[in-house]
């Protein structure tokens, strides 16, 4: 909050690239509203665009979108009928769990086991064992990167052999770097995009330039953040001079980014597509198994 208030006080900012953590975003909402400053974010927490704040623009598909893809893939492609849902205790995890449960309910399915994990939980064995004891035929995860890596490591060590569809935490190269390729063989995950999979020449170029600049492999968050920033810069290049100009562009226009095409649904949700990536067990680079496009709801 201090950082945003300082940026506003310094004057001249016509938009701000805001944090990814839902908890932090929720704290920044009143500042954005008070100062009429558009914030662009890649936070997935549903609540940040449910507060009737016209200055928040989310460039990552929200929990409802990605979990829709996650659940549909689990049910349709992995034939899950008795899933276990394991989620983080924070706002991100709880928001995701609520969305997953909602999508499962719409398909007439109730999870056979659910458990919330604090990010500091180290031993994942009890959770996995209890999921198995409850008769789960699949796992749906909504965890941050480190927790995802811990649970997948444990699942591999126990030879769990259940279909696992993880959250976007697994789409980050920083997470897969913690695991051996064999430990993620057959595991899938939802995400907004997978630049590492280099599906298009433009994505390939982005990945090459990103690696050259930062010596890191970009993840979906980097790609969506890039698209978000470029949309704002594009608006500036086309004459936007004030925060209100930028807000107007973000609220009304369509932008063809690298990851997807963005358009506000009236609530600040700009991204309405998700992909499911899967790992073949030989490499840490995923392949895109399925695309899901959801048209924005009108408000």
């Amino acid at each position, binding site marked *: 909050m201090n950082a945003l208030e300082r940026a506003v006080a310094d004057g001249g900012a016509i938009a701000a690239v805001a944090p990814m953590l839902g908890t932090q975003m929720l704290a920044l909402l009143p500042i954005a509203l008070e100062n009429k400053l558009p914030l662009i974010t890649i936070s997935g927490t549903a609540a940040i665009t449910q507060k009737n704040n016209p200055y928040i623009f989310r460039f990552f598909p929200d929990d409802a979108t990605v979990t829709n893809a996650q659940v549909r893939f689990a049910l349709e492609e992995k034939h899950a009928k008795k899933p276990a849902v394991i989620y983080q*205790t924070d706002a991100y995890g709880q928001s995701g769990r609520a969305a997953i449960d909602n999508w499962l309910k719409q398909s007439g399915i109730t999870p056979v086991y659910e*458990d*919330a*994990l*604090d990010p*500091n*939980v*180290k*031993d994942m*064995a*009890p*959770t996995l*064992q*209890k999921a198995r*004891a409850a008769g789960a035929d699949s796992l749906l995860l909504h965890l941050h*990167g*480190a927790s995802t*890596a*811990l649970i997948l490591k444990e699942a591999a*060590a126990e030879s769990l052999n259940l279909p696992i569809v993880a959250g976007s935490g697994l789409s*980050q190269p*920083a*997470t897969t*770097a*913690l695991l051996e390729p064999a430990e993620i063989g057959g595991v899938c995950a939802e995400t907004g995009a997978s630049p590492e999979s280099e599906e298009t020449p433009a994505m390939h170029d982005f990945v090459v330039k990103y690696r050259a600049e930062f010596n890191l492999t970009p993840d979906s968050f980097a790609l969506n953040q890039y698209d978000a920033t470029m949309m704002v810069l594009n608006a500036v290049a086309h004459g936007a001079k004030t925060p209100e100009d930028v807000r107007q562009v973000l609220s009304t226009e369509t932008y063809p980014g690298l990851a997807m095409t963005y358009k506000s649904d009236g609530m600040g949700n700009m991204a309405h597509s998700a992909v499911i990536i899967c790992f073949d067990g030989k490499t840490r680079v995923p392949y895109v198994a399925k695309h899901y496009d959801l048209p924005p709801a009108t408000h």
Partner: protein
Amino acid sequence: MTGLQLLLNVAALASAYALVAIGFVLILNATGAVNFSHGDLVMVGGFAAVSLGAWLKLPGIVLLPILMLGMAALGVAVAVCAYFPLRKRPPESVFISTIAVGIILQNAANLIYGAESRAAPPLLGTGKLRILNSSISQQGLAIILVAAGLILALYLVFTRTQTGRRLRATAQDREVAAAIGIRVDAMVAATFAVATALAGAAGLLLANVFFVTPTDGANYILKAYIAVTIGGWGSIPGAVLGALLIAAFEVIYPSIPLLLPGALGGADAWFSQTVSSIAMDIVILVILVLRPQGLFGEASRQRP
């Protein structure tokens, strides 16, 4: 999950936590002050193991002595910067200075390594061993053996060497120790060195199985503080027992429905990971109400 697997998981986690708690107590006894940077020193040990592993491409067991030497030097630096200049001031001054050291270490780690988790190399290997019809992780077993070895070495140094006797004398009463000719400042610096070396070792042990991030320090200092409080303020055996209690809650409590299948009558939700943390905190409060001096009593210094 077999009972043996469960016990080994508890023992492995408790072993690493015990190293953290023992280091915390050593500085507490030697200086009368809480070193709030101790958790961040564990984090630094983890990242140091990551870097050494990437640079030297050697297993953790070979990196361990190198890392501990480096961490010992860091411990002396912490003593010189955060303790000695303030030792004649009120104890709160050392609290603040060690908190500041922790913040510096956390931000430095974030700057150097970024916010994402990293994994340190395993001690020996990451395979599984079959023992008594149970599949046991090699790393878990190695953690137990290495931690036990370090604690034994510490015990031998403290009880069988002249330096160890001097360290104990300094911890018991700095003024009397100075009066009989012990170089108290050198002993305090040595204590910081030993404690930080143990913290680094714990960091290496934990960072392969559980990874390391720059923000891990807060979690470790909290565990150390709790372990030492319930074990007995200033008691090394108490710190080990406290660490065991914490590890047991983290591993055994959520596993109770597995150990007693069908016996809980639908109350399995009371044994989730979240409730496990709450249950542990309730037990801690009960212990402190019934036995405020901790399970093993309390050293003469007042607990802050």
